[in-house]
């Protein structure tokens, strides 16, 4: 029997650009052309003012650690506990759930507000996940 796999996202028409972006090494967000609101997760209209005129842009990939848990049990398929499930606040404003790589998964190492930068983890030839690592410098 195959090893249990980590949950794999399945893009929809509204989110395809995001997953195309991560595959190309870009973290893509959307900005409203009418009110300039930057938002996530993807959708073809602004959740702040309802305008359908929105643009996709490449985000800086920089942010900070907003909050997290270190999950011990039960562990999700494909994960070896303990592992941190983090929420990152991006410099552009939106927050997203992610994992923190290149960092011990301990309360001592995972300091709230620490600067982070995006990295990309290919799950297969279709899906690449955005994850974050402590920012250099």
């Amino acid at each position: 029997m195959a090893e249990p796999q980590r949950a794999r996202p399945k893009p929809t028409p509204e989110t395809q650009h995001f997953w195309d972006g991560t595959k190309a090494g870009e973290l893509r967000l959307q900005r409203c052309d009418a009110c300039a609101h930057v938002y996530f997760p993807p959708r073809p209209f602004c959740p702040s003012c309802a305008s359908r005129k929105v643009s996709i842009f490449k985000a800086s990939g920089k942010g900070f650690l907003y909050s997290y848990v270190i999950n011990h049990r039960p562990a999700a398929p494909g994960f070896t506990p303990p592992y941190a499930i983090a929420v990152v606040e991006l410099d552009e404003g939106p927050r997203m759930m992610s994992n923190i790589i290149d960092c011990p998964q301990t309360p001592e190492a995972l300091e709230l507000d620490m600067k982070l930068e995006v990295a990309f983890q290919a799950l297969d030839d279709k899906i690449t996940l955005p994850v974050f690592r402590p920012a250099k410098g």
Partner: protein
Amino acid sequence: MRKNQVAVVGAAETTELGIIPNASQLQLHADAALNAIADAGLKLSDIDGFATAVETPQQVCHYLGIKPTWVDGTSVGGCSFMLHVRHAAAAIEAGLCKTVLITHAESGKSMIGKLPRSTPADSLNGQFEAPYGVYGPPSMFPIPVLRFMKTYGITHEQLASVAVVQREWAAKNPRAMMKEPITVADVLNSRMIAYPFRLLQCCLVTDGGGALILTSADRARDFPRKPVYIMGTGESVETPMVSQMETFNSSRAFKTAGPLAFREAGIAHEDVDHLMIYDAFAHLPLFGLGDLGFMPYEETGKFIADGNTRPGAKLPLNTNGGGLSYMHSGMYGMYALQESVRQMRGIAPAQVPNATISVCHGVGGMFAASGTIVFTNER
């Protein structure tokens, strides 16, 4: 909605609570419903309105043999039953039905006839949360708590004291699952589940159910039990994704539903004799105390750690022992409502003397939804 126009005239839990290996989830709905109907002195044929969550109204109505003319299948998680009370009160006032039955049941532990919960890979949760290793409520619900602690200076010991105080209440309740006294050290030494939360800061997983019957306040006088009036109500939803909450320093759904119910009831915080705040995890009472406006968030941890919510103290909170010690089948809101009704009837195992106003505040999902009901036994 006008206050005190609708009353709870029947209330009961399942005959057994805890581990019930001899009944399906659907049968637990029926057991709770039949107990509530008996409590109200009614016949099945008297029920003309019905509400439930997770299971569909048609499933439970067919099984019970109820022929409703008003149904509500609002299913927004564990506070769905607070929303049902609010919707039922509005429906009764509008004349859509006269006698509403609300049921909850869950075979949360034994998993007999329990509907599967799944996250489709193409849902927003499936795309933007599931790939990062979330796996059940313990891995999701506590995600905001470290930010909340940092913002307001809340300590691990204060969060542990939530479980300690609720165990004190549970010790007074023969039907509570966990009654042994515990200390802050016991909590902080229990096994790690999802840092910063340990086993004793996470809710139980049990089987059970409960049911309520509501009718107009004018009719309520003719029932065998002391009527418990619906004084104020509130509800809201925010997001199914915990990562997308507006802030981790409060819950928008709590801050909408709670104050709405207080305004409708026309009460101030010092009028509250008894308080239930749905405690799936130990941080929820702190969010609730802050979001409902009882005190600044900075004071919530100290308030509980100092014993202000203990038996005999000024703000009795989660007096059945809560989801941490009484029972938690998965959607605990019904049990919080049952305890508020018992307190207003004056028959709770840990009765608050002379209580006339009870506030019952629920959460659904991971801060995804909220419902608040203010009850009173005076009209």
